[in-house]
């Protein structure tokens, strides 16, 4: 379990990182490393070079955007997100999901951008990004572009990022009044990859009907997914049976993978139960707030 030989480059800034990546097309960017480094130690991953982003100070930090949302630098550690007052106030769903991301030691190291760009289908952060209609800011030497979260995850560990392009920030839109969210997952142990997880984000209109509903599911497909079934809630009263049928419809649309920890049937069941519970809780919170 020793990695194969590689060349290590340390980027001092974002521009430096982009230059290094352009110069070394075989290089892989290194963020916190909780996924890449074990893959290298198993020799599953044998990049010719690494471009370490950890010294590129301009990639981390959490700030309020002019539009009322927040912007999180890609190299912001999970632990910083977890403890951020801005995240607590403007993206409580993200805050709620953070304790499920592995263990404190890993959250001290892992980054928000690393988790998104790695695109593990059972990771929490990508699912939350879908539920929150996040926008990802990508930069290459050719310039900057914005990618909607729902267009970003293209397959198993696959994203819309082009070679030479780095994810530099996440933008979360402003939060409407009467919004509520909830994150629930079932994992084998505390801190494990989810067997299934659900992120729900709901906004009510002035009459108490559902104005917007997002339900993201993780670990039930080759990528995090937005359940289209949740759209059926829009315009309706948030009644128990409506939520129940949305959860069932979301389940019926799944063809989840099986592994040694959960077969497909169990994953579908978990997805339904978690979807129902997360939507119920999100509605309750939206009504209360």
């Amino acid at each position, binding site marked *: 379990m*020793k990695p194969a030989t590689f060349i290590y480059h340390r980027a001092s800034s974002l521009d430096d990182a982009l230059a290094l990546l352009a110069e070394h097309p075989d290089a892989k960017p290194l963020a916190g490393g909780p996924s890449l480094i074990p893959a290298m130690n198993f020799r599953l991953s044998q990049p010719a070079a690494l471009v370490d982003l950890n010294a590129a100070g301009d990639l981390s930090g959490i700030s309020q955007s002019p539009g009322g949302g927040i912007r999180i630098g890609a190299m912001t550690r999970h632990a910083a997100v977890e403890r951020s007052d801005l995240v607590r106030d403007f993206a409580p769903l993200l805050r709620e999901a953070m304790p499920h991301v592995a263990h404190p030691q890993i959250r001290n190291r892992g980054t928000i951008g690393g988790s998104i760009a790695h695109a593990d289908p059972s990771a929490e952060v990508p699912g939350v990004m879908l539920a929150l209609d996040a926008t990802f800011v990508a930069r290459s030497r050719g310039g900057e572009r914005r990618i909607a979260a729902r267009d970003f995850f293209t397959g*198993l560990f696959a994203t819309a990022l082009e070679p030479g392009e780095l994810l530099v920030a996440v933008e979360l839109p402003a939060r409407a009044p009467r919004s509520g969210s909830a994150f629930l997952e079932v994992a084998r142990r505390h801190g494990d990859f989810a067997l299934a997880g659900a992120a729900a984000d709901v906004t009510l209109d002035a009459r108490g009907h559902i104005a917007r509903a997002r339900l993201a599911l993780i670990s039930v497909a080759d990528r995090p997914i937005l359940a289209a079934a949740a759209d059926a809630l829009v315009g309706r009263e948030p009644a128990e049976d409506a939520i129940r049928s949305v959860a069932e419809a979301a389940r019926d649309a799944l063809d989840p*993978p099986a592994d040694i920890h959960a077969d497909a049937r169990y994953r579908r069941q978990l997805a339904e*139960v978690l979807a129902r519970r997360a939507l119920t809780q999100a509605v309750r919170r939206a009504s209360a707030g």
Partner: protein
Amino acid sequence: MTRLVGQPVKRNEDARLLTGRAQFVDDVHLPGMLHAAFLRSEHAHARLRAVDLSRARQRPGVIAAFAADDLGDYWAPGPLLVPPPPIPDLVFRHAPQVPLARGKLRYVGEPIAVVIAESRYVAEDALADIIVDAEPLPAVVQLEAALAPDAPRIHEQLDSNVAAHALQTTGSYAKARAKAHRVIKRRFHYDRGASAAIENRGVVAAWDASAEEMTIWDTTQAPIPIRNGLAAMLGLPESQVRVIAPFVGGGFGPKIMMFYPEEVVIPWAARAIGRPVKWIEDRRENFTATTQERSQIHDAEIALAKDGRILGVHDVFLHDTGAYDPYGLTVPINSQCTLLGPYKVPNYSSEFTAVFTNTPIVTPVRGAGRQHGVFVMERLLDLAARELGIDRLEIRRRNFIRPGEFPYDHKIIFQDFKPLVYDSGNYEPALAKASALIGYDRFVREEQPRARSEGRQLGIGVVAYVEGTGIGPYEGARVTVEPSGRVRLATGVGTQGQGHFTSFAQIVADQLGVGPDEVHVVTGDTRTFSWGTGTFASRGAVVAGSACHAAAAAVREKAIAKTAELLGVKPKHVSIGGGRVYLERDPSKGFTLGELAQKANPLRGGVTPGTEPGLEATKYFGPERGSTANGVHAMIVEVDRETAQVEIKRYVVVHDCGTQLNPMIVEGQIHGGVAFGIGNAFYEQLVFDDGGQLLNASFMDYLLPTALDVPAIELGHVETPSPLNPLGTKGVGEAGAIPTGALFAQAVENALAGTGVEITEIPLSPSRLFTLIADSRRVGPVPAAAPSARGRALCLEGTYDFGGSPGDVYALLLDPRVLASVMPGTKRLDRNGDRYDGVLDVGIGPVSAAEFALEVVVADQIVGEQYAMRIEARGKLGFVSGTARVRLASNGAGTRMSYSAELQVGGTIAAVGQRMLDSVSKAMSAQALKALERSLRARGAASTPTGAAS
């Protein structure tokens, strides 16, 4: 006089351990030291034709590389470590393990070759240079399949895969059954797992040519037997081999296994090369290269009287022994004996067959087969309680051996070759205490019904067990008082975290009247003490502790006699304490221990003939037989019926290990044991597919419970001293781990009462529990499926509808240019008749080393209708091999293709990639099929967009 024994003295060793100063094997750094890496079998069963090391030897930084033939005469099958006990008509067939594989590979992970290089990195690079020519054979994994008459034979010299067969009986079960009020029969599956010690194995060997002396640092639990064996193998006198087992980060049994290939090869290589060599097992290796404990299948039956009294038990079971059986029958005999527990079973028949399989070797892991037996008995009693309408605690109470009935003879043979006779015990108070601590009556009467009315599923479990501990043959200890007054204690057992530096010091300090921190303890260095067997079977405190006691008592007598002689008084007037030996009525008259040590070692002048110099004594202790500890565990769980998640609300242990030497250490042992047990019950399982590939060879997928998953454990104690040793103590090392699976099953089943869920298997993952809940009916038990039956790692099956005739589709499917364009990652594909050769690069996400050489042979062709493909893909990350079948048929508008593939995956992709295999194969086949359809359309055939892979 006892002051320290029985006190929660803080551990002498912790300052060193907690500040990182304690030496472990990997802390040994020697000038010129080289590093070893082992090439291991990717196949569970294969004929090994050749190993080509030439390229590896040429790599810069590589000093040497060896395969079996390079070892010359040194290569020899290993010894039988534990011969079978004298059970009449017992059959035992020894298949010894070998240092490096020769001729045949029998499990994934079996070492084939070793590379010695300047660094571990280079050594691992060179493993990829080795070319192994192996012909895969069908693997034998499932126990019942292994016994089929046509099963492939793992050891050709044997006529079947039966490793052993034994029957032990007492009374007549047939007669008991004939007069029984009720007979209950079930099939039980019990699987265990890896020891998963925090420190993997490791060996450092240094050959001193000038002194002709070999020094070996080894993570073994048995340094002295290792020294003796290696001296014989290396052709050296035992005095010229020194084995040091320094601090070891957890043993749990697999480190008592001896003459592991690495232990045998590394010292030989160090001598051959003339430089020190280090090998540290990594975690990936540990999952298959270190022994483990696995499954048994029991067909068990209990015959009961109307009042719940056990009339007899009949059990027939299969035991998985792995690819070789160097450790004998300890595990299944423990299962057979421990099943009886604290109960009177007048008629018992227990028969087992140990079975060779193409999996890693099975040897004891903390509990050592006792779990399996306890599970069967406790489950039978739970079923009996339910069917007879007797309370679960009451049926146990009615069957307990009574305090007046000890010593109690079960009339069968235990693993120590002695009759299974319980020395002492008092079971009822332990049950009463556990019941009171957990609040059993109130829970059943009030809490459970209340929770049920709120829609919550709470359950309680209470189980009892007896653990045979502290077996022989013997251990020794030497106690020496130095002229400084410091006391030195040396014993042969090694230490893996049990607190020997403290509990042994307490025993000695009490005898010599000094503080526990004034006793310097040395364990596990053959130069310091060279007689003994090792730390296993919950025997350290009992056997070595008793030897320490005897040696310290002898020194005490010497010190008193010397003082009496010097003071001219009778020994009975002399006292010992505070580091001094003195006249009882006038404590100012006397000597410090240091002064006595000097006086006992005169450098001039005469002594009385027969005098032994110094204040020193060496004593040995061998018990007549093992002492039996016992206990009761109780727990309350909550089960979420929708998600099959189980939460442990409370966990209570009441334990009786006789006299406690140090209650704090006892508690630590129980806490650790319970964590082990919880892992076994709910989290840990070694998942082998039918090809013998371990699919969870990392801590990502092999789930150890963490501090967050183990509840606070509430402890109670009962002390029934053992009459078999002077301390009155019994072992405690394994106790916490033994009844947890049985407890879990009972508590979860109780929480689900009324659903018809019956739990007859452990471990019980939530996925499996969900299946049991989902499939349960209100009446009748659900048949137990083998929890480890998993088939191939990669199975694909589906249909796809193409627009176009079967003839067109057929031609397209076998066209190498088309295949190259549709198969993801194809870099090259050439056709030569029915054979295709190519290169695939299937890098996905972080996986970037996934280049495979591909070979496909097409067979069974019926043009336009069907064909089969024999697929072999091999790369740095392992292999994929198997057969895919394709059938084509017209479906009116076009062609329906049906495909199925069963592929064996091996190597790294199997060991750590299981989470992704299903998704990867689905994604790749969907991608290929869509591309095929596009290609078909491009050729002018109209395609219906009905394509759907399932």
